[in-house]
């Protein structure tokens, strides 16, 4: 053996802990105090969750929390929709791995994906059990999770074999699925109608949120472009709209929407209470998205538009192909932040009498059988919302990395 060359000694975990937590006596004191506090809070929470809390309020009302008063004999439609969603998710997820954009080697199961799959499996096994669902329903959840992972695996394995001409159409399954989902939920085309007033719980919350998110985005982009337009009427109209909406609290707009649309439109034409609220949410969020997009537009140097225009691109094409792709990427974090608060703003629907998640929770808590079980209900609500928002946030960060040309080495 030759002479030992100096090597970087990687500190072991115990050494690292020591260096990070107990570097000096003062550091040690702070660390001990913080660890003590965390342990105390954790133990208290664990004791409450495992011993004191009575989760029957959740398990007994799980269907109510999920879909509200959606008629039992029509709930197969929601199961079908969930299955389709799982399939589409698995397919898209697998395809994203089959076509990595970053120059990193195409790995079909990166570590994060294994974690996600493991979490899904654990959820599928644990949740139906914890909610004490009937066995057939438990089986359904297992099957749906299995399908999702199967689609993920198959798309990751064979996705690369799909010809490019067909691949271009695959993203269209999402808008298509949205329309199919709308029909499945509300009925029509041969299905029994289920009135919006019967939708509730997580179903209503997610429906309102996705509807407003999908529509407020293009609306916000148009408003932002209008605010920067050279046409005075368009510019002042956009400014007026944005500033008016941003100056009013959402709850007043929701009440206003419920009343004013009834006055403005003759009886039959005014949309249902639920849809009125959805439109108000959309128009409200659009003003905020417009400001986020405007900041993105402002970040793009004027030279970009000048270069596009001097290549002969007409204004709409210059915006679509040159300015907006860059501006929207800059505005993405702020926009998704807006989507997250929009999701949380859906809880205000309970104040105008709709049975979204919070509304449903309030009816449940008003039930004498579950008196005093507020903490359990609110904790579950908080966790549910946190999951949805975390998913949005993670998705946005992944998209940001994928769209960043400076992280993308040559092919």
């Amino acid at each position, binding site marked *: 053996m030759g002479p030992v060359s100096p090597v970087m000694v990687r500190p072991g975990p115990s050494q690292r802990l020591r260096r990070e937590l107990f570097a000096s006596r003062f550091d040690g004191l702070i660390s001990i105090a913080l660890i003590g506090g965390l342990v105390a809070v954790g133990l208290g929470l664990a004791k409450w969750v495992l011993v004191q809390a009575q989760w029957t309020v959740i398990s007994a009302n799980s269907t109510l929390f999920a879909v509200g008063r959606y008629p039992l004999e029509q709930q197969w439609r929601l199961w079908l929709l969930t299955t389709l969603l799982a399939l589409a998710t698995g397919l898209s997820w697998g395809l994203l791995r089959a076509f990595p954009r970053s120059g990193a080697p195409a790995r079909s199961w990166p570590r994060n994906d294994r974690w996600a799959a493991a979490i899904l499996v654990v959820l599928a096994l644990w949740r139906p059990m914890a909610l004490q669902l009937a066995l057939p329903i438990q089986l359904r959840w297992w099957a749906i999770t299995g399908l999702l992972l199967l689609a993920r695996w198959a798309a990751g394995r064979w996705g690369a074999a799909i010809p490019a001409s067909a691949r271009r159409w695959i993203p269209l399954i999402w808008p298509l699925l949205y329309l199919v989902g709308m029909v499945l939920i509300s009925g029509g085309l041969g299905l029994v109608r289920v009135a919006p007033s019967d939708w509730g719980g997580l179903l209503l919350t997610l429906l309102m949120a996705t509807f407003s998110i999908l529509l407020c985005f293009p609306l916000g982009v148009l408003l932002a472009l209008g605010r920067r337009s050279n046409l005075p009427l368009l510019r002042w109209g956009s400014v007026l709209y944005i500033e008016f909406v941003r100056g009013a609290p959402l709850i007043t707009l929701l009440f206003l929407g419920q009343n004013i649309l009834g006055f403005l439109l003759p009886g039959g034409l005014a949309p249902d209470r639920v849809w009125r609220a959805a439109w108000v949410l959309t128009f409200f969020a659009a003003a905020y998205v417009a400001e986020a997009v405007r900041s993105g537009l402002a970040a793009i*140097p004027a*030279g*970009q538009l*000048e*270069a*596009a*225009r*001097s*290549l*002969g*691109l*007409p204004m709409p*094409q210059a915006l679509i*192909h*040159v300015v907006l*792709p*860059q501006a929207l*990427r800059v505005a993405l974090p702020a926009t998704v932040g807006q989507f997250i608060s929009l999701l949380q703003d859906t809880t205000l629907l309970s104040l105008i009498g709709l049975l979204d998640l919070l509304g449903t929770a309030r009816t449940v808590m008003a039930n004498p059988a579950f008196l005093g079980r507020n903490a359990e209900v609110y904790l579950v609500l908080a966790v549910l919302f946190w999951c949805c928002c975390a998913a949005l946030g993670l998705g946005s960060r992944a998209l940001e990395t994928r*769209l960043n*040309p*400076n992280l*993308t*080495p*040559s*092919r």
Partner: protein
Amino acid sequence: MTRSDAVMIEARGVEKWYPNGFHALRGVDLTVEQGEVVVIMGPSGSGKSTFLRTFNALEDFQKGSISVDGITLSDDLRHIDAIRREVGMVFQQFNLFPHLTVLDNLTLAPVLVRKLPKADVQRRALALLERVGIAEQAHKYPGQLSGGQQQRVAIARSLCMEPRILLFDEPTSALDPEMVHEVLEVMQALARDGMTMVVVTHEVRFARQVAHRVVLMDAGVVVESAPPEQFFTDPQHERSRQFLSQIS
């Protein structure tokens, strides 16, 4: 070199006021013939860039007239778009599209504006990149290239539209000194091939070797317009002598 007498750019008495009242152009005349290389020099704030940018309507003007390749500039958007298709522009800051690969930077406009088949345009784009010496970078993003390479891509991008005139707005001012040369070489080759070019620059050597005519602007007017040997050795105006003594 063959120079026909066809007039490519004709500017008469162009005057421009900025919205803040600044009188940037005070009656500028310029005629550029086909195949001619005109270098515009002048101190900063003399209006040379502004004047150049009026040729493809990036700047408007209030008085006078400009016609480019027989089309008169007016507020008519169709005229402006028609002129922009025939006039390429290379900017000081390159202004490449950072979200597109080099190849897509070149093909975007010909495919969208000229409605040419993408495969044909890509073939021509690769040939152009070859010509400016960076064919191997075609699939990289602009942010991965050096300044000199980016400016050569920008020139190739303009050429991909097959313009009849190329405008250069201080194309080497944002470059590190060692990269100026590679860009000037490309421009020199273009001039040799008979491209009509109007170049705003401070590169005296380029002006001496390549230009057919050097125009000195100051305070929004043309002070002197002469062939380079005369301009640099025997300027007729006091302002020109003063300018030349400052830059040499």
